[in-house]
């Protein structure tokens, strides 16, 4: 029996092509997605191992909530380069005093302990004078010297010692086209500075496109303190153990060292030592989680492909079984059992499944390699292994074969159940009624829609404080659930509900969709429409492939277009200024650039948005953080028109009161008229300490110089003139070096905490300001000072009657030397968002194209099956005078209706989902709804084309059949 099956499989190979392609595509996505995830994980692990390579970390012992937002905004300072990935998932702990390093260094087995400072937002200028940027994006700058980063080793030159020197990671140097000895510009937070590349270093893993710059440790510390607004503290201290002579410690050794350090830490230090492995694992986990969304996205399309694949296989086997029915009947009549007949069919399925899966595994492999190559090409080299593991391959194989078996099982059963003498009547078994599916599907859709409504109510409740529903228990459950769950459950229910319901829709829909063809092409149109209603389940399943793909794309299309429209809406309705300027790196605009803009000819007024670092509200444990900005009193008249919720925003700002975004006000239960305590920090130069530090340094240098001179004298006395000469020049060199030292590195600062009570003057709803607190410069000056406040954005109004185009050109010229400052007019301000959204859409379109390809296979296959079932009918039509063109037309209309059916279902569902998502996230900036009708229209037109294309091959097949064969009596 198996031999018969294998022989049949060989005979049917041609017909299996489509099934094999479908299975291969599905499997390739499964394997590719697993493989891609593993590659990313591998990369993350590698980067963790090289970037967080300390044996023990000492960090704060108390977890902090809500701090992440401000830290992510302003700066990110950790003791290592570990958070170059998305660190939003990482827990934040209280900062610890860096003076602990002395205590730790004395612990037995510690080679060195120190805080490594990372400064974000620096921009490196490449050889040709442009800012360096890569797909990998981030530029991170670390204070590095010998030994601070074990995994980094100098390849050439030396580490940086002053603000005017840098060492570059080899990838950074390559990207920027810089060599040791070259001079370029580095844009520090406070402006561009000429720097000399003094060294190159490499790391053990690739950095996924990150540009890493090694700064002088003191310089890095300075900027870090400026950015974080805290002096003398760090989030992590990195500790290297000495046990293995410079090699990394084993996990047990790490643990022992950590225990020893913990013992040595003073009681009040609020610090704790943990092993490096622990930090790496938890950081890696957080990063992997952040990247985790990629795999499900790929898997959705794998599921579509496999769903269609199993369906195509079922169709193919139905055809084969139908044609071989006599053979099976013969086998049965000579004594084969149903199980044996079943086996002959299943063997074919296994052969097919194996072939498809193997091809799929290969394709998946190629796909991931392609992605890696593409990413490397775009500047994000990956060294993570991109080869599928054995388990990936097995998963692919099992999935592929299983799907094939599922698809083939029903036809195989039909073959097995063939009575020994099969009456070959062509009467197609009437379908089971579809109304139960209609009822079930409708019920699911209603539940899904209810879930969406609930979700929308919850979101509304969160924003406007209205009750979710009149029922108390539901309100409690809803507030516990949040919006994510009901949204997801609703979407799932609606999608599955539509798929369940679809067969019941085929009848009415084909009448509606068939109306035009039935009137334009009277006969063929009517025949086509009726044919579709014949196999309602089959038609619906065929359309489902397009349905899912189109639903996803149109849902995201609505969200994307709403996002664009919302931004455009803000600009159109609220933004009053003519230009805006932002930093292209992480936010800070250098003061000199601001000055340059102010001085530009034709500028009427400049509004400056300055962010206040580390501001908290309230007292004691109830302190909350909020993004706080200092603005000019003219903000609401010249830059943004306020959308006031309560109070008078303009007056409040002018009077030095707080203007609070509605989200912040809700979170804290603030009302207009409340008085809140604002806590800030002011960093001032500690004159005493600075003088002392300078004196100490002076003394140190003098001691060194005089020491050297003394040695020179001694050597001279002992007759070694050359040696004395060398020592003397060394002494001179030391004195010279001391003169070159940037005096700012010796400036000591101290932080004073401030507490100011301010009245809340207004609550505003503008989506840009929703989660911010605004105050005027005067009030801000009481809370912070220039060290803890920096400019994020500028809004420029042109002088009356100024030519905007010319002014823009002058502004761009004015900020050119600062590299990072972007001047945009109103249109560009709108389009920054649009470009981003468009890029995301591009990826979506690629996925859509894929689901269309799969759907075409599905339609081709369904039509082929349908044609093979209707051989006689088509023959009859031909015999009574139907032309070839009419047959083609009929099948074309059928296919087009299937495609349009799936597309319309997908659009309706997708747009509905998009509308719900928009409503739920209204507070997060999706303030206006925009449905991309033009785009949807294109989809619809495209679906008709897709259908027509898909019908070409089945129609040719139908016509190839001689009329005689079709109608001749058996």
């Amino acid at each position, binding site marked *: 029996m198996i031999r018969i099956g294998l022989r049949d499989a060989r005979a049917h190979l041609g017909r299996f092509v489509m099934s094999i392609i479908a299975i291969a595509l599905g499997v390739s996505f499964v394997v590719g997605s697993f493989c891609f995830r593993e590659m990313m994980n591998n990369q993350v692990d590698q980067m963790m191992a090289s970037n967080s390579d300390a044996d023990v970390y000492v960090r704060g012992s108390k977890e902090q909530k809500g701090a992440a937002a401000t830290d992510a905004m302003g700066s990110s300072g950790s003791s290592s380069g570990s958070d170059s990935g998305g660190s939003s998932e990482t827990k934040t702990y209280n900062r610890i005093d860096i003076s602990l390093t002395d205590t730790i260094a004395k612990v037995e087995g510690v080679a060195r302990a120190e805080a490594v400072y990372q400064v974000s937002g620096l921009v490196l200028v490449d050889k040709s004078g442009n800012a360096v940027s890569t797909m990998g994006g981030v530029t991170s700058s670390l204070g590095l010297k010998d030994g601070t980063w074990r995994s980094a080793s100098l390849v050439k030159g030396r580490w940086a010692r002053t603000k005017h020197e840098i060492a570059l990671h080899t990838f950074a140097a390559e990207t920027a086209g810089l060599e040791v000895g070259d001079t370029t510009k580095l844009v520090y937070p406070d402006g561009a500075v000429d720097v000399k590349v003094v060294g190159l270093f490499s790391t053990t893993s690739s950095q996924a496109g990150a540009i890493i710059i090694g700064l002088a440790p003191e310089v890095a510390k300075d900027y870090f303190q400026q950015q974080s607004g805290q002096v003398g503290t760090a989030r992590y201290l990195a500790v290297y153990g000495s046990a293995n002579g410079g090699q990394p410690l084993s996990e047990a050794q790490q643990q022992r060292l950590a225990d020893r350090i913990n013992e040595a830490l003073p009681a009040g230090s609020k610090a704790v030592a943990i092993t490096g492995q622990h930090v790496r694992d938890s950081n890696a986990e957080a990063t992997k989680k952040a990247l985790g969304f990629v795999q499900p996205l790929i898997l959705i399309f794998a599921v579509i492909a496999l769903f269609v694949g199993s369906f195509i296989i079922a169709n193919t086997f139905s055809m084969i079984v139908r044609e071989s029915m006599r053979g099976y009947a013969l086998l049965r009549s000579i004594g084969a059992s149903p199980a044996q007949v079943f086996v002959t069919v299943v063997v074919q399925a296994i052969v097919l499944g194996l072939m498809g899966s193997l091809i799929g595994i290969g394709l998946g492999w190629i796909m991931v390699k392609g992605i890696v190559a593409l990413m490397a090409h775009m500047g994000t080299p990956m060294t993570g292994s991109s080869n599928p593991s054995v388990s990936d391959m097995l998963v692919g194989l099992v999935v592929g074969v299983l799907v094939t078996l599922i698809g083939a099982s029903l036809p195989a059963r039909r073959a097995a159940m063939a009575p020994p003498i099969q009456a070959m009547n062509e009467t197609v078994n009437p379908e089971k009624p579809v109304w139960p599916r209609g009822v079930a599907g409708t019920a699911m859709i209603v539940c899904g829609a209810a879930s969406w409504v609930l979700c929308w109510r919850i979101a509304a409740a969160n924003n406007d404080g209205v009750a979710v529903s009149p029922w108390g228990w539901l309100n409690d459950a809803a507030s516990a659930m949040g919006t994510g769950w009901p949204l997801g459950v609703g979407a799932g229910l609606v999608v599955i509900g539509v798929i369940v319901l679809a067969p019941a829709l085929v009848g009415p829909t084909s009448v509606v969709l068939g109306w035009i063809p039935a009137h334009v092409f009277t006969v063929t149109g*009517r025949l086509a429409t*009726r044919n579709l209603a014949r196999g309602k389940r089959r038609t619906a399943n065929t359309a489902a492939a397009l349905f899912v793909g189109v639903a996803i794309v149109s849902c995201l299309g609505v969200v994307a277009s709403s996002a664009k429209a919302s931004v455009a809406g803000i600009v159109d309705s609220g933004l009053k200024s003519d230009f805006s300027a932002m930093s292209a790196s992480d936010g800070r605009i250098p003061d000199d650039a601001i000055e340059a803009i102010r001085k530009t000819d034709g500028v009427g007024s400049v509004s400056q948005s300055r962010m206040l670092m580390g501001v908290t509200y309230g007292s004691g444990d109830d302190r909350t953080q909020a993004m706080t900005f200092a603005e000019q009193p003219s903000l609401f008249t010249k830059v943004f028109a306020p959308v006031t919720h309560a109070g008078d925003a303009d007056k409040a700002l002018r009077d030095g009161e707080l203007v609070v975004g509605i989200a912040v006000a809700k979170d804290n239960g603030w009302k207009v008229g409340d008085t809140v305590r604002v806590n800030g920090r002011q960093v001032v130069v500690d004159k005493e300490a600075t003088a002392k530090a300078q004196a100490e340094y002076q003394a140190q240098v003098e001691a060194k110089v005089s020491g050297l001179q003394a040695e020179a004298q001694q050597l001279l006395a002992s007759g070694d003139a050359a040696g004395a000469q060398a020592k003397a020049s060394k002494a001179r060199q030391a004195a010279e070096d001391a003169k070159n030292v940037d005096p700012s590195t010796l400036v000591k600062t101290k932080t004073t905490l401030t507490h100011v009570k301010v009245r809340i003057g207004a609550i505003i709803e503008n989506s840009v300001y929703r989660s911010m607190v605004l105050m005027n410069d005067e009030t801000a000056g009481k809370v912070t000072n220039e060290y803890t406040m920096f400019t994020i954005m500028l809004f420029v109004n042109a002088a009356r009657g100024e030519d905007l185009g010319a002014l823009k050109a002058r502004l761009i010229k004015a900020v050119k030397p600062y590299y990072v400052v972007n001047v945009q007019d109103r249109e560009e301000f709108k389009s920054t968002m649009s470009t981003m959204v468009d890029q995301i859409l591009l990826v979506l379109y690629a996925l859509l194209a894929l689901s269309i390809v799969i759907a075409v296979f599905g339609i081709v296959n369904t039509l082929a099956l349908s044609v093979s079932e209707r051989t006689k009918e088509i023959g009859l039509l*031909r015999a009574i005078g139907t032309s070839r063109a009419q047959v083609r037309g009929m099948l074309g209309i059928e296919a087009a209706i299937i495609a349009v059916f799936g597309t319309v279902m997908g659009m309706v569902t997708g747009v509905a989902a998009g509308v719900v998502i928009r409503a739920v996230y209204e507070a997060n900036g999706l303030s206006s709804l925009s449905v991309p009708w033009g785009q949807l229209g294109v989809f619809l037109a495209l679906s008709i084309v897709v259908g027509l294309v898909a019908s070409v091959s089945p129609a040719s097949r139908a016509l190839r059949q001689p009329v005689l064969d079709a109608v001749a*009596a058996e």
Partner: protein
Amino acid sequence: MARHNAQHNVRRGGRNTETVGNETEREERDHVVARAVDLVKTYGDADNLVTALDHVNVEFERGRMTAIMGPSGSGKSTLMHCMAGLDQPTSGQVFVEGLEVSAMNQRQLTRLRRQQIGFIFQSFNLVPTLSAEENILLPLQIARKPIDRDWFDQVVRVVGLEQRLTHRPSQLSGGQQQRVACARAMMARPSVIFADEPTGNLDSRSSREVLGFLKQSVADYGQSIVMVTHDPRAASYADRVLVLADGHITQDLDHPTYERILEVFADGTGDDGADA
């Protein structure tokens, strides 16, 4: 109406053959609706050659019902398929209304089927998704011809389907389905209807109804019908019976009785047996 139509066809037939023959020949052609000239049809390759039709010459008269009989493998179905343009003869010519069917391409064949030929098959005559009425009107709609409602009513009344027009084929009995098929074949008023075992799947009562209708259409409307059957009872309704054996016409009977056919048939098969 039918007469008029037939005359119309006659004129056309005449015009087409004008160049071929002289006046007497034309006269002859006028009462011939279809003919085969030296028709040969073989299957298979040289090693394994099966001759289904062996130099068959035959003419089918206008306004008569001709039955083609013969045992299995005698070539009766092949003859009909070649006559109707469903099958391509190996050599020889086929004319329907003076048009050479055997030399036609697909487009011309489609036109021929729309204008000159009606079909009734043994089974699967109707499009299952269309109602009886839609099936009957289908050939006209396919050919985008205007529908003659009077003629439709007349045909439907004759086949007795007035009450069943909105039914789908699956809701009709086998006899009713065949009557719908007959009505459909009649509807376009073709020059000739080819019926392939039209009663093959029917019980005797339904067979009588269908055959009665076919005979009536010949008598009342001058319809030409060529019917393949192996049922002597069905053949006895015909005006003329041709008997085929091994690709040759062995008998040509004019208005034979049922008994006569049985007798001939018994001889024919007997002869075959003796030959073998």
